[in-house]
């Protein structure tokens, strides 16, 4: 064997030990709540974190475990924990290290659910956030307070598509000894591995491109294993004794997997946002073809960009691969294979034209998701980002006429033909 397996090999094999009893080639779906212990000593040692193993599927499950190890391998992380959704992953990661009185510095250009979590929900529990324009690097440093415990952002901002300067922000985090967590949903590890650029934690909504088929909701937190939790007294949940496990010091015992262990030991046990084995199986099937799908997503995206840029009814098109995009240079640096398959564009004729387009476009599905094998469209201002205020909408780079397009894997001619149907319906609002 070569010293290290490559991405495509890991996508297919990582984490799975072939079932010894029946030799099942696909990962079995261990649809069980619990596991028979061979003896009391084994049972107590699993509960006391003395050894690996499964006790109860809220905490861990063999099928989910394969997915976790596969994603950890693809990201280059030391450990991963899967959750019921991407939002659950974000929540579990934050609560693993932040408590009442703590503060987050976050990019202003994020999924509306993330903004709502940090702006509306977490403050009820005493955790506050300051939002910073992702292109304002100095702004991240200026927003840091004594109680700041986390820097958070999406590598490809949703839906404005500004690219985070990972190395610059990781440097700020390092200077202040604050971990830098990246929502890597839009890029997947095939396009960029944030740990290679200094990030300390990543999360994904694996519902999206990782799973890729719109069949299962899921999330994951990946521990980069590259943050020194014991260097200061700022992270007592990791570096000080944890009473429920006989005073275990996770940092001392588990080192590069301490953060992930805290999530499993606390969030999965006490909050319980576990991923189902069936969903893990479906998501594993998706990951097996991740690179193939991403390559097709990217090639279709480039063709759709060309189509939209040359369409007389399109007022503007935004994608980081376009030289006109403000993040074009950063996209070339961090996403050399391609800057993802989300495109934002405006239809001439404003909100009404956009509405007519969405209701009449063919093939593209009007729904609140991205990263499906099928092409998806939505109007963010009235849907995914409707729960954030006007000021936050502007900060997130969302305009009234914006349509978010998640380019799928259909034949490009059929896709463009379907778009023409939408443009025909929108024509009357464009003054033509």
């Amino acid at each position: 064997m070569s010293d290290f397996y490559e991405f495509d090999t890991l996508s297919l094999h990582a984490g799975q030990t072939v079932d010894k009893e029946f030799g099942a080639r696909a990962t079995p779906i261990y649809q069980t709540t619990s596991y028979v212990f061979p003896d009391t000593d084994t049972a107590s040692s699993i509960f006391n974190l003395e050894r690996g193993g499964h006790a109860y599927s809220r905490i861990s499950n063999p099928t989910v475990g394969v997915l976790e190890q596969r994603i950890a391998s693809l990201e280059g992380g030391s450990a991963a924990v899967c959750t019921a959704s991407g939002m659950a992953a974000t929540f579990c990661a934050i609560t693993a290290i932040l408590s009442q009185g703590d503060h987050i510095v976050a990019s202003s250009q994020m999924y509306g659910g993330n903004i709502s979590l940090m702006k509306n929900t977490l403050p009820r529990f005493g955790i506050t956030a300051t939002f910073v324009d992702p292109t304002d690097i100095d702004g991240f440093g200026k927003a840091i307070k004594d109680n700041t415990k986390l820097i958070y952002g999406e590598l490809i901002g949703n839906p404005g598509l500004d690219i985070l300067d990972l190395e610059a922000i990781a440097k700020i985090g390092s200077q202040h000894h604050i971990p830098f967590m990246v929502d890597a949903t839009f890029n997947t590890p095939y396009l960029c591995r944030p740990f290679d650029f200094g990030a300390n934690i990543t999360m994904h909504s694996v519902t999206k491109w990782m799973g890729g088929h719109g069949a299962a909701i899921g999330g994951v937190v990946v521990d980069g294993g590259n943050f020194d939790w014991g260097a200061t007294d700022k992270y007592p949940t990791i570096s000080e004794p944890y009473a429920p496990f006989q005073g275990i010091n996770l940092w001392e015992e588990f080192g590069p997997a301490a953060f992930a262990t805290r999530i499993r030991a606390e969030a999965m046990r006490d909050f319980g946002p576990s991923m189902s084995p069936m969903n893990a199986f479906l998501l594993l099937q998706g990951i097996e073809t991740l690179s193939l799908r991403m390559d097709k997503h990217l090639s279709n995206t480039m063709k759709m960009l060309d189509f939209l840029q040359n369409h007389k009814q399109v007022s503007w098109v935004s994608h980081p691969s376009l030289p006109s995009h403000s993040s074009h240079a950063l996209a070339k640096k961090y996403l050399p294979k391609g800057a993802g398959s989300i495109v934002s564009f405006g239809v001439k004729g404003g909100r009404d034209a956009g509405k007519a387009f969405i209701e009449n476009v063919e093939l593209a599905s009007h729904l609140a998701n991205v990263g499906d094998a099928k092409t998806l469209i939505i109007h963010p201002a009235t849907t995914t980002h409707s729960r954030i205020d006007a000021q936050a909408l502007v900060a997130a780079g969302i305009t009234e006429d914006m349509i978010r397009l998640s380019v799928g894997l259909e034949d490009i001619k059929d896709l463009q033909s379907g778009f023409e149907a939408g443009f025909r319906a929108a024509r009357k609002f464009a003054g033509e």
Partner: protein
Amino acid sequence: MYFDVNGKRIFATTGGKKFDNSLPTVIFLHGSGLDHTFWGLHSRFFAFRKYSVLVPDFPGHTHSEGPPLTSIESMADWLNDAVESLCARDISIVAHSQGCLVALEFASRFKDRVKSVSFVASGLATPVNSALIDAAENNPEAAIAMMVGWGFGSAGHLHQGPVPGNSMVAAGRKIMRSNVPGALAADLKACNAYSNGKTAAAAIDCPVQVILAGKDRMAPRKAGMELVEHLHNPELHIIQESGHMIPQEAPDESRLLLRNFIFSNNPSG
């Protein structure tokens, strides 16, 4: 816990229990470039079964103050100083790779302290490829890649393992990056220079156990069998499917073997 050895601040995990020198002690020794977390799937087990556990980071490794030690003999002396400072007694040594060379020296020179020795993935000597030493001195990332690449067997490289969600290969890289600069090179040079293995092995008179791996590319079975030949009446086990990193790749099998051996040869009340 942190404690002082020869004026330097040293870290050792005690497996989640306070170190108690009235109990028999199990000391786990890590290999080149590694640290205490390498034994995490063994140390806590013994700590919760009436043993005092000590898993030190050798000087210059992860949490222990440097500089790194430069010979196997000096590491054995340092270990004796650490044991003395903690008044540890009835010691079972469990060692991996480079740690086995330290264990050979320690157990042969400080016989009164030692109740048993378990050698995991080692021979009498550890000759090191000059390209690896050169990389450790001049291109640490390349050296870490070689160590991790050669160290783990196919299961490790496929990120399999009994701890849900954990990638032992990635964790291995992170651990090696946490050492002070030069620690890996110092370890490898110390291994390469060590030549007293035969004499030391012959001088050990406590019960000994040897656990080898069937797919070890760093300490091949042939080298391990040479160690077996020079020890007095060793208990030999071979874990066929594991690579060199037995404590991580085959933790359940190796823990059971260690448990049975230590419980039998160094029982705790």
